[in-house]
C-alpha cells in the first residue's frame, strides 16, 4: 500500500453514527489513522478502533484544538511517520482532496498545505452568511493576510514532520485554526493553499460550529501570546 509514511489525525467528539464509515473510508487509502476520542460517551472510540484506527481517548472533553494536538503528538512518535493530515470526523472532507494535498506537499516543497473553500472555481460554496464571516476572518487576521490565505478555518490540513514536531496548540477549543496559522508565521513554515470541496451534509451542518463562535475566536486570538506557555 502507498502512503506508508502518512498519518491521518481524526479528532472526534460524539460521532458514533458516522465515525465507523469515515475511518473505513480513510483506511481504504491510508494505513495509518489515529482517532482522538475527545471524551465522548457514545462509544465513538470503540467504533473507530473496530474500523481500524489507533484510538487515543481523552478522559474528559477538551475541545478540537486539544484533540488535534494529542493526535499529532501520538502520530509523530510513530516510527516512519513523515506526513500528517488533520481530517474532520463528520465526513465533510473528501479523500481525494487529501491525496492532492499530500502530492502538493512533496511537489511544491512547502511545509504545510491547508484547504480552502474559496479558490475559484469551486463547486461547493458555504452558505452566504458563513462565507462572508469566513472571508472577513481571513482578511482581518494579520497572519492570514501575511500568508495570503483565503480561508481561515478549514479543518483539512496536510503538513510534514517539521510542522508536527513544532506544533504546540494551546487553544483547546475552536480557535486552534487561527493558532495553526499564527504558529506558521512565527516558525516560518511555508504554507500553500489547495482548493478543496466541503460536503455540507445535514449531519455536518448540525455538527458545525455556530457562527457566533467567531466572536470567541477573535477574542482568543487577541489574548494568545499573552499567556505563559
Amino acid at each position, binding site marked *: 500500500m502507498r502512503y506508508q509514511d502518512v498519518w491521518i489525525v481524526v479528532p472526534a467528539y460524539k460521532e458514533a453514527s458516522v465515525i465507523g464509515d469515515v475511518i473505513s473510508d480513510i483506511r481504504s487509502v491510508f494505513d495509518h489513522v489515529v482517532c*482522538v476520542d475527545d471524551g465522548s460517551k457514545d462509544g465513538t472510540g470503540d467504533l473507530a478502533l473496530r474500523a481500524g*484506527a489507533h484510538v*487515543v*481517548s481523552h478522559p474528559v472533553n477538551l475541545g478540537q484544538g*486539544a484533540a488535534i*494536538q494529542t493526535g499529532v503528538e501520538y502520530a509523530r512518535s510513530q516510527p516512519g511517520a513523515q506526513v500528517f493530515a488533520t481530517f474532520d470526523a463528520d465526513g465533510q472532507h473528501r479523500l481525494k482532496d487529501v491525496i492532492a494535498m499530500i502530492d502538493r506537499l512533496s511537489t511544491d516543497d512547502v511545509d504545510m498545505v491547508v484547504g480552502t473553500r474559496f479558490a475559484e472555481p469551486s463547486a461547493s460554496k458555504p452558505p452566504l452568511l458563513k462565507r462572508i464571516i469566513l472571508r472577513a476572518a481571513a482578511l482581518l487576521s494579520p497572519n492570514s493576510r501575511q500568508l495570503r490565505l483565503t480561508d481561515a478555518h478549514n479543518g483539512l490540513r496536510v503538513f510534514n514532520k517539521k510542522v508536527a514536531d513544532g506544533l504546540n496548540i494551546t487553544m483547546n477549543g475552536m480557535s486552534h485554526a487561527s493558532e495553526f496559522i499564527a504558529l506558521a508565521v512565527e516558525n516560518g513554515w511555508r504554507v500553500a493553499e489547495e482548493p478543496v470541496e466541503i460536503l455540507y451534509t445535514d449531519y455536518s451542518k448540525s455538527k458545525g460550529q455556530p457562527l457566533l463562535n467567531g466572536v470567541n475566536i477573535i477574542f482568543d486570538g487577541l489574548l494568545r501570546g499573552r*499567556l505563559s506557555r
Partner: protein
Amino acid sequence: MNWIQALLILAIVALLVYLLRSRTSARTKAWVKVGGVLFVIAAVYAVLRPDDTTVVANWLGVDRGADLIGYVLIIAFVFTTLSTYMRFKDLELRYARLARAVALQGARVPDDG
C-alpha cells in the same frame, strides 16, 4: 463613632486576620501580605475620617471621596476579572496537558495495526 464605621472596621480586621493566617509561603505571597496590610491601614483611616478621602479626590479633580473610591473599585474589579481569566486559561492548558498524557498512555492499537 457611627454603627457603620464599627461594622466596616470589624470587617476589615477580619479580612486582615484571614490574610495573615493563610500559609502559602511563596515570596510573591509575602508582597501580597504587605500590600494587604497597607490596604487595611488605609481602609481603617478612610472609615474613621471619610472627609479626608474627599481631600485626596479634590487633588485629582474628583468632587467627592466616595466617587473616587467608586472609580478605584471599578478599575480593581476589571484587573481582578482579567487576571482570573488569564489564570483560568493557564489552568485549562495544564489540565489539557494532563489529560493528553493520560490519553497517550492508554492508546489502543487496532488488531491489524
